[in-house]
C-alpha cells in the first residue's frame, strides 16, 4: 500500500496498545453489558452467585420490566427525576455562571481573587460537596437555622427529606405526551422550512407531525402501560441536591463564559456603540449570540454529568432515600445489593443511551466542523 510508510507504521504501533485496551475495556464491556441486560442473570437468587450460573436469553424482558413492571415504579420516578434534575442543573449553572462572568468581565477590584473563589468548588469531588451540603441542609441545623438569627422560627423545609412532589403526571400518559411534544417540534420545523422555501423538507416534517398527532388523538389515549395510574413528578427533595450541584459546577461555566467574553474583540462593542446601541441592545444582539457556542458546549458537558450523577446523591441523601434517587444509584443497588445483574445491566444500558443522546449529536457536529476546516 502506498500510504503505509515507515512513519505511518510507527504511528500505528504507538496507537495500537491504547486501541486494544479501549476496545476491550470500553467497547468490549459495553457489548458485554448490553448482552447481560438481555438475559435473566440474577432474576433467580439461586443462580445469581453460583459458580457456574445458568443464564438464559430473555430478549427485551428486562427493559419491559423497567418501563411497565409493577415493581419498578422507583426506576420510572428516577427517570422523571433525572429529566427535572438535568433541566434545573443546566439552567442554574448557565444562569449563575453567565451572571458571574458578566460581573467579572467589568474588571472589578481583585478580579483574580474572585475568579479563584468562584472556581474553587470545582476542585472538590462530589463526595466532599455532598458531605458539606448535607450538613448545611440537615433538618435541625444549617440553613434551616438561618431565620433564628433574625429572631424568627427555624424554617421547616425538608431540603433533602421532603416527600412532596409537584407537576405530577400519570406514567400511562407518557407515550401521549411524548408524541404531542415531538409533533409540536416537527410542526415548528415544517413551518420554518416552508418559510425559508425548503419545500420537500417542510412536507416531510409536516407529514410526520400529522401522523403523530393522528396517533396521539386516536391511538394514544388507549395505550395503557400499567394497570393502575402511577403519578410521577418533580420531587421537592431534589431541590437540595440541585443547589449543591449548581454550587459545584457554576464556577466552571463562569470560566467558560469569561473566556468567551474576553474573546469578543473590543471593536465589535465599539462598533455597536457607534451604531447607537444601548448597553442592553449590545448584550442582547451582539454579545449573547456570540456566546451561543459556549452555552452549547457547557450544556453538553453539564448534561452528561447530570445524567450519570451518583456520588453527590449518595453522599447527600444516602442510597435508600427513593425521593432523591437517580438511575445510577438504582443500578448500583440492583446489581450489587440485590444481585440482579441483568436488570442492573439494563439500567446501565438505558443510561448509556441517554448520555449518547446528548453526546453523539455534539460529537458528529464537531467532527463535521473539523473536516470542514481541514
Amino acid at each position: 500500500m502506498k500510504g503505509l510508510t515507515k512513519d505511518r507504521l510507527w504511528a500505528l504501533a504507538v496507537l495500537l496498545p491504547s486501541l486494544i485496551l479501549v476496545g476491550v475495556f470500553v467497547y468490549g464491556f459495553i457489548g458485554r453489558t448490553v448482552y447481560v441486560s438481555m438475559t435473566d442473570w440474577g432474576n433467580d437468587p439461586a443462580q445469581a452467585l453460583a459458580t457456574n450460573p445458568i443464564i438464559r436469553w430473555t430478549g427485551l424482558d428486562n427493559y419491559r420490566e423497567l418501563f411497565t413492571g409493577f415493581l419498578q415504579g422507583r426506576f420510572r420516578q428516577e427517570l422523571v427525576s433525572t429529566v427535572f434534575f438535568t433541566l434545573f442543573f443546566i439552567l442554574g449553572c448557565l444562569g449563575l455562571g453567565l451572571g458571574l462572568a458578566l460581573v467579572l468581565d467589568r474588571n472589578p477590584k481583585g478580579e483574580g481573587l474572585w475568579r479563584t473563589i468562584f472556581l474553587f468548588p470545582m476542585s472538590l469531588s462530589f463526595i466532599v460537596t455532598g458531605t458539606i451540603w448535607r450538613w448545611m441542609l440537615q433538618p435541625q441545623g444549617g440553613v434551616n437555622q438561618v431565620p433564628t438569627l433574625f429572631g424568627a422560627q427555624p424554617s421547616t423545609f425538608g431540603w433533602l427529606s421532603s416527600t412532596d412532589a409537584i407537576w405530577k403526571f400519570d406514567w400511562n400518559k407518557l407515550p401521549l405526551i411524548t408524541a404531542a411534544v415531538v409533533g409540536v417540534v416537527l410542526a415548528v420545523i415544517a413551518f420554518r422550512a416552508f418559510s425559508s422555501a425548503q419545500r420537500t423538507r417542510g412536507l416531510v416534517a409536516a407529514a410526520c407531525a400529522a401522523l403523530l398527532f393522528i396517533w396521539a388523538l386516536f391511538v394514544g389515549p388507549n395505550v395503557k402501560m400499567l394497570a393502575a395510574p402511577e403519578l410521577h413528578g418533580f420531587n421537592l427533595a431534589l431541590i437540595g441536591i440541585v443547589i449543591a450541584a449548581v454550587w459545584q459546577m457554576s464556577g466552571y461555566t463562569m470560566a467558560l463564559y469569561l473566556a468567551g467574553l474576553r474573546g469578543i474583540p473590543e471593536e465589535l462593542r465599539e462598533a455597536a456603540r457607534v451604531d447607537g446601541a444601548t448597553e442592553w441592545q449590545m448584550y442582547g444582539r451582539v454579545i449573547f449570540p456570540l456566546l451561543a457556542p459556549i452555552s452549547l458546549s457547557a450544556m453538553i458537558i453539564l448534561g452528561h454529568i447530570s445524567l450519570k450523577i451518583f456520588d453527590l446523591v449518595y453522599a447527600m441523601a444516602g442510597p435508600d432515600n427513593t425521593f432523591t434517587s437517580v438511575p445510577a444509584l438504582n443500578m448500583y443497588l440492583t446489581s450489587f445489593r440485590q444481585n440482579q445483574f441483568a436488570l442492573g445491566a439494563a439500567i446501565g444500558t438505558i443510561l448509556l443511551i441517554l448520555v449518547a443522546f446528548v453526546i453523539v449529536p455534539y460529537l458528529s457536529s464537531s467532527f463535521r466542523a473539523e473536516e470542514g476546516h481541514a
Partner: protein
Amino acid sequence: MLALALATVSSASAAGKLEIFSWWSGDEGPALDALVKLYKQKYPSVTVDNATVSGGAGTNAKAVLKTRMLGGTPPDSFQAHAGQELIGTWVVANRMEDLSSLFKSEGWAKAFPADVISLVSSKGGIWSVPVNVHRSNVMWYNPAKLKAWGVTAPKTWTEFLTTCNTLKAKGVAAPLVVGENWTQQHLWENVMVGSLGAAGWQNLWSGKTKFTDPKVVAAFTTFGKVMDCANKDASGLSWQQASDRIVDGTSAFNIMGDWAAGYFTTTKKLAPNTGFGWTTAPGTSGTFVMLADAFGLPKGAKDRAEALNWLKVLGSKQGQDTFNPLKGSIAARLDSDLSKYNTYSKSAAADWKKNKIVGSMAHGAVAPESFTSAFGAVIDQFVASKNAQGAAAAAQQLADKAGIGK
C-alpha cells in the same frame, strides 16, 4: 514430585494461618480483638489475619466479600447477619459448608434456643454460628417527659394511636420519631409482629400467609396511621439523631434495636430507667425479635481446620461471654454468665430465655438481601401514597421474586 512437594509446603504453612473477615471496626473492634485473643490462647501456633472492612452494617464489607467469593479466594470464615441474609445469598448459590456435624459434636443443639437453630437452618443444613444477639422490638422513651405529659407507654398499636392523639392534643407535633429508610422498615416490622403475632409473622416468611392476606393489609393500614404520628423529616435523620429527639423531649417514643441502650448510656451518659426507659414494642410482649451476627464457613476455604476451631470458639460459652459484654449485645447461648452484663442487657437476656423468638426482616434474619433492599422503595411509596392494597401486592411480588416460602 514437584506437585507433591508444593502440596506439603502449602499444607505446612496453612497449618498456622487463619483469615477472618468482618465489618467490626471502631467501637466494635475491641470486642473482636478479645475474641481473637481467646482464640490465640487456645491455638498459639496460628497466625490470625483480621481482614476487617469498615462501614455500617457491613455495606462495604459485603461488596468486598462478593468480589472475593466470585474471584475464588474466599476468606476462611466471614461475618454475616444470621439467617436468610446468608442463606438467601450464599447458601442457595451452593457456596457454604453445612455445619450440622459441628453443632452435633459441640452439643450446640441444646445450648442455643430451638428458634435460633431453625433461623440459621434451611434445606436440612445449619449454615452459621451466631455469636451475639440484638433485640429489635424495643420502644424507648424519656420517663420524666412521659410523666410530665401524663401518658404511659402503650401496650398495643391501637393504644399507641390513642396515646398519639393525646400527645398531639398537648402540642407534641411528632409523638413518634423515625429516621432514614431502614429505621422505617424496622418500625414496619414491629407493627407487623405486633399486629399479626409471632406465629403470624413466621407464617409470612414461610409462605403460609401471603402479604395480600386481609390481616396483613390491615396491618399495613395501621403502619400508615402510625407513620402519621411521626416526624416529617425522617429521611434526613440517622438513628442516633432520631434517638436524640427522645432525649431532648421533642418526641415521646422511638422504636429501635437495643444498640440504642449503648448510645444512651455510653454517648449520652444517661442512667437506665431514669435517663431513658424502655419496654417491648406495642403488641410484642412475650416475643423477642432478634438479629444476630454469625460466622459461616465458605466452600473452598484455605484453612478449613483452623476455621472450624474458630467457629468452635465463637459458639463456646467462654467465647460468647468474652465478646458480648464488650459489644453491648447478649449471648445467643442460654447458659451465659449474666453477672458480666449491664442493666439493660440483663433484662434482655432474661427475656431471651423465656420469650418466643422470631427473626427480624430489616436486619437480614428472615428475608434475603434482595428483598430487604427493594422493600425500602415499597415503604417509601406507601408512606407517600398510603395505599395499603398496592403496597401489600408489591411486597408479595417481591417475596415471590426473592424465593421466600420456596
